[in-house]
């Protein structure tokens, strides 16, 4: 199959693609939410008279006036149901008006009285209310141990004990969370910027006490999500509530300044990694202990210590998550939850260990390759990390590297290179799909998958065309509607594997029996029957080159190279884009992204893209992604592992390791800002080490 260009590319670049807030049904009005301005307390009064004095204002919803909703799993969706304020920025009212400007103006005029209570928002390492949860996100046990780590560590010849810190991080998709909703004859239609219309449909049906088929959710084009749109968020519930209240279609698009408080973010983490090794770099013991933060609304614990259960052979291992529930916005999924922050710590620690042992960091990793998944002793369905490391080293020119830190100078710049490994589980979920033969000789694929910019549409066209044995231009793909065959959301990097499996099955069925005209398939039984004796993960190796200005501490990325082993790559152009995008986001996390919990107010202070720095073009001069042809028969018919998240994993560590190589300074905290580097360079200078 030839490389297929993004099917909806033309629609996107010409502006024809319609996103959730591009839908303007007749008589559509606008809703603007009002965020709480205290971090903890109770709403005692909402003064709405000034807002309602404007004749264009149709309604103001508050916890007193909003319709009662049925409870669902995520308490953050119980919007305007209680006067309690669990964090600053939580919505306490909603204005609906004829125009967006009128709604904004009225929202600004609403005054809210609170009975304020003292709040607790800062993650401290000795927080008295820290606890070990039952499990971390993804159903992972919070704690795992094998062997006697303490004894092994105490006796080891080489020991590393290091603490790594990452602040809160925010998804900040280009398209903010938005929804347009209307009711007709007891039916609810919602266009939502979401990673999964099926889940939004089910959740809205539950909240409003409706049969599922009375709710239609459309997410045809989505301008990024990175996990923040994986589960329904408060905006879509507010839009539906408001539309019901005023009896007209309602559009609600969240201002970027509100996103940090209501759409989820990556919680800050404090990660202690202890490694015990012999002099040759053979790991004897590994402990990865993580403390993170959740809200009082819902427990969300990122599975940050989980990749340490997958990566390296170690006779003794201990992986622990602890969390503290505070008066903060509820954290949620952000690209590669767990693997991304966890691998920053683990892969930084491996770099430190390589140095302690006087070993090349690539060689150290190769020496610790396990033959089975260390935590479970299961066989790997496929694991080509070693090949990624070797191929990456070859392409990057790693062999020419002088291992000594802090010695390569170009004028006022210090230059260095670094490596890190990446991993992400190869997940799959049951899906249904339908394939129809049309009278004009084309085929239609129908499945409620979501394309959040990943190229999902295009990959599914490739899968269908291959199974049907027809050119891809004879396949049309309909996705992004909850009345299409049910499919899991775009998350966990399992879209192509899960949706593709169902599409493959339906298409194969139709090719076998063309007379049927239409074949609908479900993979429920096949997914259930998957051989659980295999551990399924994708792997990769990331290489980075950086320069650090000795006068300013400014760090600039020079190049980034990744080699990945992720099963069969279904469609190279869109896959490369996914991997490069993940790497850019990882570099952004390493160097730029900084969010500050304001202790006095209890919110994240950086509230726009001018203050919360994500990488721009000038920050990513050269990023290359390659892959190894990996044939894994234990996955799914398309043979695919996920790639949506793999690219971000390990990137931050590769960059941080490169900064260490450039400067001789080990920074165990992100981002690697000028502020941090300059202070370290100045203090090294004062100590005469530079």
């Amino acid at each position: 199959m030839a490389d297929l260009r993004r099917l909806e590319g033309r629609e996107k670049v010409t502006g024809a693609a319609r996103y959730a807030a591009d839908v303007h049904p007749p008589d559509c009005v606008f809703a603007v939410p009002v965020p709480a301005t205290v971090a903890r307390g109770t709403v005692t009064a909402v003064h709405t008279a000034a807002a309602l004095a404007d004749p264009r204002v149709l309604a103001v919803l508050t916890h007193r006036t909003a319709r009662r909703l049925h409870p669902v799993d995520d308490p953050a969706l119980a919007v305007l149901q209680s006067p309690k304020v669990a964090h600053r920025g939580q919505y306490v009212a909603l204005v609906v008006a004829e125009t967006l400007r009128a709604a904004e103006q009225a929202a600004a005029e609403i005054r809210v009285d609170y009975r304020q209570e003292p709040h607790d928002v800062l993650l401290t390492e000795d927080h008295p209310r820290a606890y070990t949860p039952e499990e971390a996100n993804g159903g992972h046990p919070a704690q795992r141990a094998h062997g006697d780590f303490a004894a092994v560590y105490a006796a080891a010849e080489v020991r590393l004990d290091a603490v790594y810190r990452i602040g809160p991080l925010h998804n900040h998709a280009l398209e903010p969370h938005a929804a347009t909703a209307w009711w007709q004859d007891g039916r609810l239609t919602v266009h939502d910027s979401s990673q999964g219309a099926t889940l939004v449909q089910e959740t809205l049906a539950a909240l409003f006490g409706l049969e599922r088929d009375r709710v239609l959710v459309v997410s045809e084009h989505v301008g990024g999500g990175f996990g923040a749109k994986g589960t329904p968020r408060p905006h879509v519930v507010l839009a539906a509530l408001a539309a019901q209240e005023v009896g007209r279609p309602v559009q609600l698009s969240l201002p970027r300044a509100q996103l940090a408080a209501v759409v989820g973010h990556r919680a800050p983490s404090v990660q202690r990694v202890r490694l015990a090794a012999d002099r040759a770099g053979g790991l004897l013991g590994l402990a990865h202990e993580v403390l993170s933060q959740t809200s009082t609304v819902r427990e969300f614990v990122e599975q940050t210590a989980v990749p340490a259960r997958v990566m390296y052979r170690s006779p003794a291992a201990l992986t622990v998550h602890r969390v503290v529930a505070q008066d903060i916005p509820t954290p949620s999924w952000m690209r590669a939850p767990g693997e991304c922050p966890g691998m920053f710590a683990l892969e930084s620690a491996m770099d430190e260990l390589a140095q302690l042992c006087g070993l090349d960091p690539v060689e150290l990793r190769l020496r610790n390759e396990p033959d089975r998944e260390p935590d479970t002793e299961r066989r790997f369905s496929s694991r080509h990390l070693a090949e990624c490391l070797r191929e990456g080293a070859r392409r990057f020119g790693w062999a020419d590297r002088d291992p000594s830190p802090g010695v390569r100078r170009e004028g006022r710049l210090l230059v260095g290179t670094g490596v890190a490994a990446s991993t992400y589980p190869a997940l799959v979920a049951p899906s249904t799909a339908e394939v129809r033969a049309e009278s004009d000789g084309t085929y239609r694929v129908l499945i409620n998958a979501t394309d959040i910019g990943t190229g999902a549409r295009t990959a599914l066209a490739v899968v269908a065309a291959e199974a049907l044995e027809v050119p891809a231009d004879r396949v049309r793909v309909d996705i992004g509607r909850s009345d299409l065959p049910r499919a899991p959301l775009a998350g966990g990097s399992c879209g192509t594997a899960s949706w593709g499996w169902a599409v493959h099955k339906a298409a194969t069925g139709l090719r076998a029996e063309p007379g049927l005209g239409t074949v609908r398939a479900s993979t429920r039984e096949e997914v259930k029957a998957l051989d659980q004796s295999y551990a399924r993960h994708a792997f990769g190796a990331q290489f980075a080159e950086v320069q650090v200005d000795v006068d300013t501490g400014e760090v600039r990325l020079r190049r980034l190279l990744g080699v990945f082993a992720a099963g069969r790559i279904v469609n190279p152009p869109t896959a490369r884009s996914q991997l490069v995008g993940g790497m850019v986001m990882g570099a952004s996390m390493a160097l730029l992204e900084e969010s500050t919990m304001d202790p006095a107010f209890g919110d994240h202070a950086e509230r726009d893209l001018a203050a919360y720095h994500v990488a721009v073009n000038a920050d990513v001069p050269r990023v290359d992604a390659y892959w190894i042809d990996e044939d894994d028969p234990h996955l799914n018919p398309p043979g695919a592992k996920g790639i949506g998240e793999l690219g971000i994993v390990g990137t931050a560590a590769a960059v941080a390791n490169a900064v260490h190589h450039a400067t001789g300074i080990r920074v165990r905290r992100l981002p690697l800002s000028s502020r941090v580097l300059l202070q370290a360079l100045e203090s090294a200078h004062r100590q005469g080490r530079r």
Partner: protein
Amino acid sequence: MREFAYLRPTVAEEAVALLAASPDARCLAGGTNLVDLMKLGVEQPRLLVDLGRLPLDRVAPLPDGGLRIGALVRNGDLAAHPAVRAAYPAVARAVLSGASGQLRNRATTAGNLLQRTRCLYFQDVTKPCNKREPGSGCPAREGVHRDLAVLGASDHCIATHPSDLAVALTALDATVELLGPDGPRSLSITDLYRLPEDRPDLENRLLPGELITAVALPPAGPEVRSDYRKARDRASFAFALASVAVCLTVREGRIADAKLAFGGLAPKPWRARAAEDLLLGALPEEANFAAAVEAELAAARPLRDNGHKVPLAHNLMVRVLVELTERGGHG
């Protein structure tokens, strides 16, 4: 955003009359900062006076050999202008280091000089800010202030002035031409800005109804070497952690004239007079540069999280001075 009236005068006097008659009016030039502030509710003008039709978008030579830049010259055009690039490279470099290409194509010369601080508390109307609401307090002092001022701040305000262009113009001794209800006048750019003291809401010395019509640059002598350099974490589209502008004249092996300015450190572009005085007549050597800059920065009063700005500004300024004297040319 609150609704507003919108007028587009075609002559400057008409704009001045509109502004003088309506204290709630704001001038709209490129809109790259004002419109953001209106969306945030920080600015709520009743009237927007769009200056876009005023004939103030020319760059023209002055009889004394200087250059006059119209108030409405777009930043992108200013940076690309041959006369600016040839004689005032620090101006071109300062402008190009600001914002993004898209913003520079909209932003104007005078708008750049009058843009407001990006202090996070100033931008958030749900929090106190003495600049926005005098007397309400300054939570930045104890709060998130890693980008805020180390020089010239007061107990009432620690905001930084965000402009790059203003820093270069400060080192060039530019003059700002104004038009008000009582006619034209001009101010040195260093007199345009005020320090916050106990009135951080008063940022400049424009009188009610007054417009900036142009910026006049003095002649760039053939011996003057100038440069602008900005440090920032993001390689583009980021405000300065610290920036420096230098105009230096070395004659017979001694520093005959030195004009130095810092950006990103203070509530206004910071003219480094103490350092300049020390450099006059000195040998152009790194040790002398370092001593002069250190003397200037002795006045710095960093807070908990912005102490890095002091060594950063120091290193940047010394480096630019060394490079200017070593390579002996313009930036």
